[in-house]
């Protein structure tokens, strides 16, 4: 871990209009995350965890505030430039896995490489599926895999481009405790190996306990 912040957010606020009234989902979030850190964002449902994750990853645009990723002010970029930045720097894992149902496990892992135009997508994806223990399931479609297996495919897809940062939204939320624990082990093992910065949203105390830092949100504000 080095002490250079790879993620810097300041004054991050997100408001939405709900039928004439303005609702503040996130209010004035300031944070710095150093490379190699693992951060758990926790809080009750509706506290703004997923919104914060979406803003930090540039999936959504704030009402106010800035986010610097690896030194780049991402909201000065347009949506396409942000997409390019995501492709280069970020990996994602989701509660509902978000695998494409029409692609096999291997093809799902190949997809980010193909989108970035990498030449040896198949080999690289294959080796990542081996790494997550799914070498025998590479030709299976998501619907033919268990939840744990689907999340392993998602881990392989998240790490296949060797991202600097990994954003995970409730990665164990859809899994039973035992499978969830296995997934956490795998994710942290690869994270250590790759030196990736990990930002995850979770309700799972086991998971947050393993992170180097916990950010707690209450009604859209970060509390200590």
């Amino acid at each position, binding site marked *: 871990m080095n002490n250079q912040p790879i993620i810097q957010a300041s004054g991050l606020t997100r408001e939405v209009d709900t039928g004439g009234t303005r609702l503040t989902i996130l209010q004035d979030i300031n944070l710095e995350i150093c490379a190699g850190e693992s951060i758990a964002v926790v809080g009750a449902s509706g506290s703004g965890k*997923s919104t914060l*994750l*979406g803003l930090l*990853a540039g*999936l*959504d645009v704030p009402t106010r505030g800035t986010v610097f990723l690896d030194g780049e002010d991402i909201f000065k970029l347009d*949506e*396409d430039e942000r*997409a*390019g*930045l*995501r*492709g*280069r720097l970020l990996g*994602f894992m*989701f509660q*509902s896995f*978000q695998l*494409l*149902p*029409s*692609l*096999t496990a291997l*093809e799902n892992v190949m*997809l*980010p490489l*193909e*989108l*970035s*135009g990498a030449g040896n997508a198949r080999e690289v994806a294959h080796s990542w599926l081996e790494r997550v223990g799914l070498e025998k399931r590479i030709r299976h*479609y998501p*619907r033919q895999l268990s*939840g744990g297996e689907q999340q392993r495919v998602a881990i392989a*897809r998240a790490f296949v481009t060797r991202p600097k940062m990994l954003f995970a*939204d409730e990665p164990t939320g859809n899994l039973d405790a035992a499978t969830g624990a296995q997934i956490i082990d795998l994710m942290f093992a690869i994270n250590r190996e790759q030196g990736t910065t990990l930002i995850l949203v979770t309700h799972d105390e086991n998971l947050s306990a393993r992170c180097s830092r916990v950010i707690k949100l209450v009604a859209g504000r970060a509390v200590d």
Partner: protein
Amino acid sequence: MNMIRLSLRMLLRDWRAGELHILTLALIIAVSSVATVSFFSDRVQRALVLESNRLLGGDLLVISDTPLPPGYAEYARQLGLKTTHLTRFPSMISFGDNSLLTSVKAVAPGYPLRGELKLADPPAEGVAAQHIRVAQGIPERETVWVDEKVMVALEVTLGDKIEVGAAELTVMSMVESEPDHSVGFVSMNPRLLMNEEDLAATRLIQPGSRISYQLLVAGDEGRVAGFRRWISERLSPGERVEGIQDARPEIRSALDRAGKFLSLAALASVVVAAAAVALAIRRFIQRHLDGCAVMRCLGATESDLLRLYSYYFVMLGSAASLLGCVLAVLTQEFLSYWLSELLGIALPLPSVLPFIQGILTGMVLLLGFALPPLLNLRQVPALRVIRRDLELANLHSLAGYGFGFAILSVLFIWKAESFKLGIMIMFGFLLAVILFGLFGLLLIRLFLLTRPQGSGPWSYGLANIRRRTIPSLVQATALGLGLMALLTLTLVRNDLLEDWHARLPENAPNRFLVNVQSDQQKKLMGFFDEHAIPRPEIFPMVRGRLMKINDRPVNLNDYPDPRAKQLVNREFNLSWTDTLQSDNEIVAGRWWREEIISSEHELSMEVEFAETLGLKMGDRLTFYTGGGDFSATITSLRKVDWDTFHVNFFAVVRPGLLDNYPVSYITSFYLPPDKTPILQELIRMFPNFLVIDVASVIERVQNMIEQVTHAIEFVFLFTLLAGFAVMYAAIASTQDERIYEAAIFRTLGARKQQLARAWAVEFAVLGTLAGFFAAAGASALGYLIGKYVLHITYSPSLWIGAVGVLVSVIGVTVIGLIGTRTTLSQPPLQVLRK
């Protein structure tokens, strides 16, 4: 990144995963139905033209009263066309003491190029049946073939030598029928066919003789058209070119209508197919929303996604269109083979145009309906990966379908080959979409107000429609449109066929009598009474040539249109009557009335004739007749229904104006086949009469109508098939929601049967809505097409509407339940875990 390669990979992956089956199926059915209909109607139309060309003896005639320059035939042969020529003139022929005015036709090898010349055994005592055979070649030198009238009048038998001018020629065969015998009002004198090489020996071709030289041309349709264009620019005065359409207005109008109907059928299949494709794309887009959001997360830019899916759809469209076209070629080949067997006519080979049209249709349909949602798809918020509730803002927008519709209308106008028909159909369907949408929304809102109580299938089924308001509306509208196209076609088809049969009743006039003199009228009526033939109406006529228009001499060079040139150049018949004939309709000006005395000589002109010659109301025409010049002003334009085979005139004047000019009379009547022998008696009684036999023309027209009827029936079946594709696509478009819903309901304890009943209610309601939409829309569109495009009387049919609604209710319910059967059999957990 190589986007094309990635697109192809995605396409193949989606295909393998079964994501594309419905869309591809809809496209293939769309393309193949459109292309089959086009291929088939193209072939049938060309067969009908060829078939009618048999009446000319060739595809095109060049006619002149002076020998034709050899360059014409040479050029036609250079184009790869077959040619032959003939010389026609009236002449006295004799045998012993008997002599007879005959129409002589000197033919060259190759005659006839189209149709058949039939020979028969001469009548013999006690022999009723005549052996009829098709002639091989033309009469040999120094021989002639004559018709029965010559044999009877001259009292000759086969082998006798008759005098034709200065030559003595042997009668070798009796002519039963000639293909070019009944076209136009040519002389119906007794007929004689001879070899043109004997012509010189007859010494009948002298300066001043009334001779018609004809060049017959036949071959590939495009080349014939090319030849026609070429020669039209080179015709000298006295020369004219004729195709079947020029010769017989009733055939032209039958062909026109058949053509329009077949185009209409092709258009209907486009509409039906478009509805299927639009629905299938809707489902595709919905299923790909998440994938796009994930790809956006993984770094794909908007333009990456746009390119990715553009290539994707172009490849999918090309493959499906190609496959559809191949299928169409096979289907139409089978249909054509079957139809040729049935009708005994060989269909010409298909042209490549339908193939191109098919491919273009597929691409236009796919891109027209896929592009707008595609443009939206690239804007899928990446945040959707976290928040599933983020929908595409414009997924259901009508603007998206509007673009498809606009593109479709261009296709319409092109396919309809008529701006009017294309625009009418386009606006008809556009209006239908709007009205269906609004009315459907209103009905669904009404359901909302009258929320049924309880938990039976009715309340669940109706609740489903309420919950899926927009998808239900889209489904009902698409189904309604598809069905509307089918019903319109059914209604128009019935009217067209009925109209044809009504126009050509069994006892339509089949003989014309020309050159009846004033003092012969009474005797002629007596003759009809004696033979129990109803007295026909008899019309006066004065032959005249158009000399001046608004006192300006007519100049042939003012008419670039060959048909106009030919009409101007021709002597035509002026008639008069005080009452408008029943098959005439005034379209401009007014018919004369006894009480209104006009200072001008009033003249009523046939509207198409006037249009061809550029004549308008108020123009003053001067004719030269045998009795001097005669001028009159156009005070009305008439539309004439030529299909009736009644006597009709291009120019009709007010009674009394032509009393001092040389007049003769013309009439038409129906002669039952068993009474044919009385014609001989008629000719003996009135030797000056010209009898024109149109029986064979009528028979051919009736035959053609029969053929078109069969063609229309087949084409219709195909459109019906496309209708099933719409139903399937419509049901599939909400399949995913249904699967999920079923899982939840079943988890909560609903039995399969309960769900199936609720869905049956939902489908039945959708079917009813679609059925009523379709019946109402089809009635309106059928009326418009009947009135303004096909010019037939439209009779609204409640019966067809009712059957349409019933078919819609039953069809949608049955296909819906079959389509969702697998949905119910999936274990709920499997679905919910997805």
